[in-house]
């Protein structure tokens, strides 16, 4: 009798605990999804914390593309430099993501800023900003002044190539004659410019990162391996993230 009572009691305890947990979980989830007020945002718990001061490499971050309809605006892709992962669009209005890959072939990068009318994070608590520096990654050691970062800018095609939009991270070779030999296979190739371009971003939470865009082609990290039909868009890039208030991009 006593025994079965204890078992029952224990069972009851467990069941109620599970129920409560379940409820908590559900309510948490709901909060996250709706979360119209910024103060309700729950920061992502990153295992081991934000990976500060270490060189990070993301290989072949794949973004769906449709070569049959290349100018139809694709779905934006959000990425967190803190968790090193794609963030569902559901979280666009939160400070959980740092870079938005948007526009043509998802090749235009922008930041997460709640004050920017054009950012996907408009209205969020994101304090992001972005710029591009005409130097290779290793030479960018000082964090540029906040005044030189833009909350609205998108960074994509470079004016050195065709259809450039200012200074960008890649050169688009329309006719295949700028970097290629003019052959069919070298036409319409997008050349990342890691040798002379570095993106600097202030993250949604105010940290700083410098980013070397290396390629948008699958498993092909150098220009000799890039052709019209090489599978794309598979973003490969390296970055270093340092905490809010830093003045240097240090690797420790």
């Amino acid at each position: 009798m006593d025994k079965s009572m204890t078992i029952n009691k224990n069972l009851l305890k467990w069941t109620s605990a599970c129920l409560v947990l379940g409820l908590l979980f559900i309510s948490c989830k709901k909060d996250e999804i709706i979360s119209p007020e910024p103060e309700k945002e729950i920061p992502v718990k990153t295992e081991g914390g934000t990976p500060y001061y270490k060189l990070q490499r993301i290989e072949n971050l794949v973004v769906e593309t449709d070569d049959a309809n290349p100018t139809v605006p694709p779905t934006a892709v959000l990425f967190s430099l803190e968790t090193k992962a794609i963030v569902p669009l559901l979280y666009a209005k939160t400070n959980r993501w740092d870079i938005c890959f948007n526009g043509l072939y998802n090749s235009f990068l922008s930041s997460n800023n709640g004050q920017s009318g054009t950012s996907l994070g408009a209205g969020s608590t994101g304090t992001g900003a972005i710029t591009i520096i005409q130097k290779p990654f290793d030479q960018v050691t000082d964090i540029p002044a906040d005044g030189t970062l833009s909350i609205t800018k998108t960074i994509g095609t470079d004016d050195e190539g065709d259809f450039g939009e200012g200074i960008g991270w890649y050169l688009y070779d329309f006719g295949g004659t700028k970097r290629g030999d003019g052959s069919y296979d070298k036409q319409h190739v997008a050349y990342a410019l890691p040798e002379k371009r570095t993106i600097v971003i202030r993250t949604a939470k105010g940290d700083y990162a410098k980013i070397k865009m290396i390629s948008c082609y699958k498993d092909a990290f150098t220009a000799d391996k890039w052709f019209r039909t090489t599978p794309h868009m598979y973003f490969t890039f390296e970055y270093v993230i340092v905490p809010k208030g830093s003045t240097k991009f240090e690797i420790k």
Partner: protein
Amino acid sequence: MKYTKYTCRFTKKTITAALLLLTVAFGSCKKDEPDPNEVLQDGKSVVITDLAGDTQAAMGSGTPGKEVRPFYTFLFRFRDQKQIWIRNAADSAQWLKTKDWDLAFTGPYNSEVYVNDKDYQYNPGFGGMAKSAVLLLEQSYDTVNQAPSDQTFNASEVTKIGWASSAASNGWFFYSLNTHIMQAIPNRTYAIRLPDGKYAKLQLINAYKGNPPSVTDLNWPAPYYTFKYYVQQDGSKNLQTK
């Protein structure tokens, strides 16, 4: 009852007559329709129609009668509508770094337009003598009555007027990589501050011959530029043309 009476009156003859009248009316309507280039005239602006770009060049895929090579850049001067070709190093040396041009039509199909700016490294006039600035105004040409402030010009990040890969870009046309057809974006006017401090406005209208409202035929003759501009000669910011 009255209605039935009326319907009865619609004999074959009347119908034919009505149809005839309608056709005549429609025909005359069509005649009254203004020439697409005539509506561009406002009595003040300079309207350039079908200015031939590099029609001999082609990008890839052997088009008969065209050479596979990059498009030659041409320059354009506002004050006398002079078109200047840059085909070789000698042309470049003679013209690019001078103040003798206002617009450079570069890139595929001459579709990427620069103002003359010595300070931007990819500008054809880089290292030269001219300092211009350009801004995108998202309004129709006729409604632009005033040039923006100098601070706005100074802060401009528009390096070139070309392809708009998205609605957020500053370009003058959308280009479908699928159909390969260019389409000017409505309500885009470019305000320009010229090297001599004068203000101007510019609308790029078409790259297809005859300024058709839309093109479905990939082989429609191109590039033939239609555009209009106005330079305020008195140095004021007044850009009213209508």
